[in-house]
């Protein structure tokens, strides 16, 4: 087999986690760059990237249910909210203004947030078994509105709209990760924490989708009736897809506000759901790396547009002008969503595949 790296002699090789040598090399290089990054760029960029990594965990979750299992969910914001409040309540100050239990150990509240969100996912899943397509999309959208109402009214837990509550406390083995330590600053530690978690959850998801369960998801997505004829238990796999997706959403939700340290119930609106849908679709539906690219892209977009007033003087940098950066940002969301879906339905991942295939056969076009 020497010199013929793409010749597979077994299914196991073909389905391997990193099945080609360039993939292995590129993944290793990316890992090293990502680990060195905190020592090279400023803290505010690190915070942004850390948020992006968390968003990527959430986007992977949405991708599992929507991209792989084909169950359209506009309710991701609801599950993010469940996770965020579970994490914040568990690790919160027991004597504070809002509900808190003082369990600050990160692994405990992180797992609990995921599990509680997964429980809600299982409760919602029967709807997905009965409904399909756009009916399901609108029902999950209704979930966001109902959740929004509950979180606004339940002020003992959420602090109420406009006031909010402190986010979960990231404490690992007795060390507060959001505070400066002897060696690293708070943002550096959070960046590394989020990166490690993203790698863990990314690898888990990648392994899931190339397993029996992942193939069952794809069968349900492509034609659920046909899948059930060949023996895929629709109820089981739809419930499973929602549970796993909600688990990811719960984990992401619990971590999402750790960087800022504060959040209010108004954050979990329909807009958040649409943002996650945008991440999945712009990144590329049905791919893990696409979800990560999309999440980073959407998270970094505000930062990029904020730099624009310096380049394009007709855009005003503050909120009072005729055409502000905030409007530009909102318009960009919409335009990007439209353009990507029309021109490149496979998203950033599709662009990457085209670039790769071009260079693979270069200088020939086939």
């Amino acid at each position, binding site marked *: 087999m020497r010199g013929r790296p793409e010749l597979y002699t077994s299914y196991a090789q073909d389905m391997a986690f990193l099945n080609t040598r360039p993939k292995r090399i590129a993944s290793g290089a990316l890992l090293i760059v990502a680990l060195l990054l905190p020592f090279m760029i400023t803290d505010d960029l690190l915070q942004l990237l850390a948020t992006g990594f968390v968003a990527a965990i959430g986007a992977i979750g949405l991708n599992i249910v929507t991209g792989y299992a084909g169950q359209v969910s506009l309710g991701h914001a609801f599950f993010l909210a469940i996770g965020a409040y579970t994490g914040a309540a568990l690790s919160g100050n027991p004597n504070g203004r809002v509900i808190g239990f003082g369990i600050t150990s990160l692994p405990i509240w992180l797992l609990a947030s995921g599990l509680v969100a997964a429980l809600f996912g299982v409760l919602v899943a029967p709807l997905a078994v*009965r409904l399909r397509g756009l009916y399901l999309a*609108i029902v999950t959208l209704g979930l966001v509105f*109902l959740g929004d*109402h509950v979180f606004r009214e339940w002020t003992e837990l959420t602090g109420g709209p406009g006031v909010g509550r402190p986010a979960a406390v990231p404490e690992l083995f007795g060390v507060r990760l959001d505070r400066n330590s002897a060696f690293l600053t708070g943002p550096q530690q959070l960046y590394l924490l989020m990166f490690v978690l993203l790698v863990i959850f990314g690898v888990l998801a990648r392994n899931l989708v190339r397993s029996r369960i992942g193939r069952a998801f794809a069968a349900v997505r492509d034609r659920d009736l046909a899948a059930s004829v060949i023996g895929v238990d629709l109820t089981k796999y739809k419930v499973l897809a929602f549970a796993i997706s909600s688990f990811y959403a719960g984990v992401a939700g619990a971590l999402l506000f750790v960087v800022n340290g504060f959040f209010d119930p108004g954050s979990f609106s329909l807009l958040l759901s649409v943002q996650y849908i945008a991440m999945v679709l712009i990144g590329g539906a049905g791919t893990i790396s696409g979800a990560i690219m999309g999440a980073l892209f959407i998270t970094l977009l505000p930062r990029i547009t904020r730099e624009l007033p310096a380049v394009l003087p007709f855009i005003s940098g503050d909120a009072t002008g005729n055409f502000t950066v905030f409007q530009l940002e909102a318009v960009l969301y*919409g*335009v990007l*969503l439209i353009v990507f879906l029309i021109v490149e339905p496979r998203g950033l991942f599709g662009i990457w595949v085209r670039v790769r295939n071009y260079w693979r056969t270069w200088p020939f076009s086939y």
Partner: protein
Amino acid sequence: MGEFLQSLVRGLGTGSIYSLLALGFVIIYKSTQVISFAQPAFMLAGAVLVSYLAPVTGFFGAVAVAAVIIAFLALGVERTVLRPMVGKPVFVVAIITIGVDVVVRVVTNAFIGLEVRQVGDPWGLSTVTFLGVDVQSRYLVMFGTTAVVTVALFAFFQYSRVGLAMRAVAYDQEVALAQGISVGSVFALSWALAGGLAALAGVFVATGAGVDQQLWIVALKALPAIILGGLESLGGAVIGGLAVGVIESLVGTYQGSFAPWLGPNFALVAPYALMLLVLLVRPYGLFGKREVERL
């Protein structure tokens, strides 16, 4: 009893707004199998347009002109953005309409600014005595107009050749094509109709309180309405819209004294709760078509 009647009329009034919007959703869905999330933006744009035109042309002229302009805007959106996506997965197209919604809304918001704009309607918050209770006259106007528009639409679908073509396309696109119907222009027409209806609904929402940047959220209430009625049913859309309006209004009136633990403002999300309950029993809505599936 007076309180109940007042609440009922208010519900039917706002419900007729939802009905107009729901009709737009259903018309687009029937011809293209897509739910257009751009309706809220068209509704907002219609209301804003009227607020600018009313001082020039008078209120009623402004409404007519705005409905036509928004219809053409919707038609343009269909031609440029939606047409390349014919035959693609409906969910992807639905997400594209979310993109359209965001763009149109941000542009419209720039014309609203931070203050509340008035549409210059002749009713305002004035009241008349109806069946012995004081009700705002605008609710009666909304209900009456919606009734007229609905009857006109049904007559259009039932008796005109174009209406027949639209029904044929809704029934089977390929067969319709084979009969010489231009499916493309039916798509365009259904978007234009939906746009016009949304503009009219927008004006009604804006009567009384005026137009601000949050107005579009009202349009999302039409979603439970179409799900309640069933996505394929025009009659279901009207009934669903009215039901959502009445439920919202009745819950708003009585929930405070009967179920205060649900919290104030529960009326705003009551339609969604109702939608979930109905769907658990009837997954295709009250009047929707049960899909026959084949492999």
